[in-house]
């Protein structure tokens, strides 16, 4: 059996490990346009700020490919995918045939049509090369302290790069169209805590605003905002989001919506082609709709499932929903699921909330039909996985709702029967 995996990040590596669970022998080839050993993409902001080096970013040991008997084509782009002939053509001209294919091509930064966003000093920030490029600029001796960075987008990527640049001594301003930071994963209250914390560290915000133009010659020197404000801009970063990287499949009959459509077995609409990670669109278990959920654990789990199935297993992964663990300047947060129910549906939800403004702690748990569908934990994130587990299990918590915000909430809050069932595993 010949397996081909396109992509060398979480989903691709999950694919390798999934295949090898079931098939120690088959030939596996991994192709990636990036020339690097598999590395942890979420660490690129840590890399930029100097907290980790390349060695520490490696997602698997140096002998990973050798140990798993993988042929690699790293730093090589796939030019065409030909599902009818079950083959791909690389930019080098090499043709690779496959019996089973995993598309794990990830996401591409979305760049909105902002005038001047093609200027030399305007960047995106999703992969290691982006971090290398930025590192080169901001580490120019004597310059970093005087440089001003303007970031478009106060999402996870925008704020992580803001933190890194602020740590390096740059003056950082974040411009965001929404009226709060991290609008997809936080509510108003939580967003206010995070924003204040970041402002205390010197990061400035222009919310409910956007950039109309990066103005200047070859390089931008000013960002003009819709509100009329202007900001000094020695470098700009566009971080408004990622979209599935569909370049390879756009001329194929593969069914695509926003991402490549997959079922819970990670199968696409074409036999023997699987997809996983940020490129695909699957079922969101909480919303009951199809969606792109570009987070690391989903990508790895989907890849692992795809790999096992490519090697003949019958596995499914149906635990896709948004969840994020992230922190800024030492303030951690974990959020999951539905955290902002729609206004018109709000009466279907029960919301439990607790805050202690003194220490930046905030907790919100969102319940529907006696089941947890989402939560936000700021600062006190300990044991948040119990909540994630209850979401996955869709456990009825009617009899323990009154304890859910207690400081000692845990397995003792549950019935003895359920606790014993869990803890004897």
């Amino acid at each position, binding site marked *: 059996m010949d397996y081909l995996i396109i992509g060398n990040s979480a989903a691709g590596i999950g694919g390798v490990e999934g295949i090898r669970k079931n098939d120690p022998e088959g030939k596996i080839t991994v192709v990636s346009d990036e020339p690097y050993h598999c590395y942890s993409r979420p660490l690129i902001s840590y890399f930029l700020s100097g907290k980790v080096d390349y060695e*520490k970013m490696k997602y698997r040991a140096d002998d990973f490919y050798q140990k798993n008997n993988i042929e690699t084509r790293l730093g090589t782009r796939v030019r065409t995918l030909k599902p009818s002939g079950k083959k791909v053509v690389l930019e080098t001209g090499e043709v690779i045939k496959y019996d089973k294919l995993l598309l794990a091509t990830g996401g591409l930064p979305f760049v909105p049509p902002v005038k001047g966003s093609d200027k030399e000093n305007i960047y995106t920030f999703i992969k290691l090369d982006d971090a290398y490029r930025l590192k080169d600029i901001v580490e120019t001796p004597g310059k970093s302290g005087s440089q001003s960075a303007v970031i478009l987008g106060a999402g996870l990527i925008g704020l992580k790069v803001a933190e890194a640049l602020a740590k390096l001594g740059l003056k950082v301003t974040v411009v965001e169209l929404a009226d709060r930071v991290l609008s997809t994963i936080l509510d108003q209250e939580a967003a206010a805590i995070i924003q204040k914390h970041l402002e205390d560290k010197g990061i400035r915000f222009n919310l409910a605003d956007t950039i109309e133009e990066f103005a200047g010659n070859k390089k931008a020197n000013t960002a003009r905002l819709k509100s009329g404000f202007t900001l000094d801009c020695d470098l700009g970063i566009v971080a408004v989001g990622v979209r599935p990287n569909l370049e390879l499949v756009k001329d194929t009959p593969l069914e695509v919506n926003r991402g490549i459509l997959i079922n819970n077995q990670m199968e696409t609409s074409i036999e023997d082609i699987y997809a996983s990670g940020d490129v695909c669109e699957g079922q969101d278990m909480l919303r009951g709709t199809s969606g792109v959920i570009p987070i690391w*654990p989903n990508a790895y789990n989907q890849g692992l499932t795809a790999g096992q199935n490519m090697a003949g297993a019958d596995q499914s992964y149906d635990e896709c929903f948004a969840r994020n663990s992230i922190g800024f300047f030492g303030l951690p947060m974990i959020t999951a699921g539905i955290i902002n129910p729609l206004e018109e549906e709000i009466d279907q939800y029960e919301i439990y909330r607790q805050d202690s403004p003194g220490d930046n702690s905030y907790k919100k748990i969102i319940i529907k039909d006696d089941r947890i569908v989402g939560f936000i934990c700021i600062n006190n994130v300990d044991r948040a996985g*119990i909540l994630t587990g209850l979401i996955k299990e869709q456990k009825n918590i009617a009899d323990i709702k009154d304890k859910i915000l207690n400081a000692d909430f845990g*397995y*003792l809050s549950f019935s003895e029967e359920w606790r014993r069932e869990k*803890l004897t*595993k």
Partner: protein
Amino acid sequence: MKKVFAREEYCLGCKLCEVYCVTSHSRSKDVVKAHKSEEITPAVIIESGENLSFALQCRHCDDAPCVRACITGAMQKDPETGIVKYDENKCVGCWTCIMTCPYGAVKRDEYNRNIISKCDLCSETGEPACAANCPNNALVYKEQEEEGE
């Protein structure tokens, strides 16, 4: 595989498991020195309420969700021993494992090192100190019972 199981009906809530967990993971292996001059986060979690207490450690799950979710590759399941363990040098303290562990069995280091702390079944000494030192046998180190047993 052998794991530590709690028998809540025998637990006195004395927290000796925590004391010996710290000692077992210390350099000195001395109860006093371990607590006074070494900064070690206990890897056991003690839940205690009015009439109930028990200790809880990493369940070393077969198909561990924390291993699958770890963004750096620091968390791995040892294929030989089955122990789920983490590489301190690779852990960056992102707390994705804390978000993922359904038992709430992964802790943040309590001494401001940006890494996690969790049970490794005392892999250095070979015998979990929490169970070995439990005065009332409320923690037992034994083979997991198979389904239906």
